[in-house]
């Protein structure tokens, strides 16, 4: 029994690390750029397949392709914000109207990316055997790639946290999230800060996608589920909070492993239920500010 619990917790931590990255990207997009990116999971899926293709066709290691994918997706996200969301922001009469129109645009984007991926990778779900040898952690056998993924996501998450909390640009981002108009008056270039955040969010989605495919494989239908996981984690941890996203990710990761053990089909309904309870009881999340 104790061994099972330990195994659930360790596997949950390994899963939760990726969930946390997924949620941090989502949170950066919604918390600062105010775009509820329903296509978030599709970017993860796209990155997952890109990394798998790079590995199988050009034998580029996922640990190298994670950099390529992150940079590529950052550029795409930055460009998308400049092309779509910036003009929506300027044409929307109110913040609520922008939230509405931007999430609709993201919904359209979901289908654009998903259909493109289905055209490029029409086959069945695929996975790699990269670093797929077992290692022993506290008596629990886990695959090495999952451990590498957790270390990687911890590193990225702390780097992102320090970027937002300590650097000058991070300060500007926080100011833009807090009060856009005033931050603009203080000389912060709001449009590029928002585009930067949106791009960073997509880059985090890309990193999460590469790590996810390294451990769990990829299918073209996985996007929507991951988007909803991101939503649930963000609501549990608190919108716009980096540590909150991490805590929420770990919690949901452990819950997902408990369910995987006993009732794998009920993972999504359970997340949904947790989301509902959180929204009703404490919409600001565990770590969110009132």
């Amino acid at each position, binding site marked *: 029994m104790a061994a099972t619990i330990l195994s659930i917790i360790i596997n949950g931590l390994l899963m939760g690390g990726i969930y946390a990255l997924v949620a941090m990207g989502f949170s950066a997009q919604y918390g600062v750029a105010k775009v509820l990116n329903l296509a978030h999971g599709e970017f993860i899926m796209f990155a997952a397949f890109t990394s798998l293709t790079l590995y199988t066709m050009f034998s580029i290691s996922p640990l190298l392709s994670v950099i390529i994918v992150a940079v590529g997706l950052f550029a795409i996200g930055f460009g998308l914000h400049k092309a779509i969301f910036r003009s929506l922001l300027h044409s929307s009469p109110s913040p609520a109207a922008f939230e509405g129109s931007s999430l609709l*645009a993201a919904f359209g984007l979901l289908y654009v990316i998903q259909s493109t991926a289905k055209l490029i990778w029409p086959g069945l779900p695929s996975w790699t055997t990269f670093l797929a040898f077992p290692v022993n952690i506290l008596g629990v056998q886990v695959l090495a790639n999952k451990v590498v993924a957790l270390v990687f996501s911890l590193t990225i998450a702390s780097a992102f946290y320090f970027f937002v909390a300590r650097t000058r640009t991070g300060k500007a981002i926080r100011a833009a999230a807090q009060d856009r108009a005033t931050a603009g008056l203080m000389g912060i270039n709001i449009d590029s800060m928002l585009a930067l955040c949106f791009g960073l969010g997509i880059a985090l989605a890309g990193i999460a996608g590469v790590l996810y495919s390294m451990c769990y494989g990829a299918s073209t239908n996985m996007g929507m589920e991951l988007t909803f996981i991101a939503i649930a984690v963000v609501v549990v941890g608190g919108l716009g909070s980096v540590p909150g996203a991490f805590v929420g990710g770990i919690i949901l990761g452990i819950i997902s492993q408990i369910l995987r053990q006993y009732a794998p089909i009920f993972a999504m309904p359970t997340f949904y239920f947790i989301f509902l309870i959180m929204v009703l009881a404490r919409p600001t999340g565990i770590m969110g500010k009132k």
Partner: protein
Amino acid sequence: MNIATFTSKKFLVPGVLVLILVMLATVPLYISPGPRTLLIDFFMYIILAVSWTMFSGPTGYISLASAAFFGIGVYTPALLYAQGAPLLPLPAVLVAAGLVSFCCALLVGAATLRLRGIFFTMFTFGLLEAVRPIIQYCELEFHGARGRYVESIGPNGVYYLMLFALVAVMVTAYLLKRSRWGLAMQGIGGNEEAAAHMGVDTTRVKVITFGLSGAFMGITGAITAINWYYVDPSSAFNLNYSFLPLLMALVGGMGQLYGPVIGALGFAYLRWVLLSTQYYMLIFGGIMILFILFLPGGLASLIERGRHRLGGVVAKLWKGGGAEQHANT
């Protein structure tokens, strides 16, 4: 002249509508099966788009749960009107589908419509992913098969049922738009706090209208299930049924009652033409983004603008003629 144009205008629109309805009602007598299938498709998408707009159009709360209510509607006849062993007569099955979807929508609405719109949208986005696994599990555990067969009533039966549902949803949407209730919803969309101060019970209005729109989606799902004849969880609970009505309403324009109708006609036809290609959803997604960016009011706003301009030109011509006479005399 004033009275003459007034009365002719007053009867023109209803007259045309009755004419269209009579034509549609008699169509199965002389049409071949192919176009009839297409017409059933048109009706289905019009109902979905209009019932989505009924709630989300005026209030501005974006629901992504259409597919869930549609899917619940699909599963009602799968259980109650199964092939060879229908438990209830057909009208009762349709009423049941409407009721079940109504209650589900009511629950979802009561839980989330007090919160900010963004939480409502997040919640409705996940509903599909939450309901499908439960149905899948129940089917495998208690039914022992992936899908179910539904009793057939023939394509003409489906056609008339869908037409009936279409008329019902159009009349409801029209009456709702003109009523105090409709005004209250527009007030909520304009400024919810102000509407509440005016004495509108905003939560009640939102929840009940959301339930009503869910009921129509459920009934449509039930008729569609009879049309499909074979039903399984992944075809019933498909995100496309959330996306397409939204796209149709957006491209058609939510400001006018006819907006979602033209959007539904256009995209149902496009879908029918492009169905064999693999990339039609790619095109649809792209169109959605373009419309949000460049024509957020949809085609209806373009038509209304054109009508105003045309109306202005006509009036000018009329008056211009008169003015010329004045100038001459």
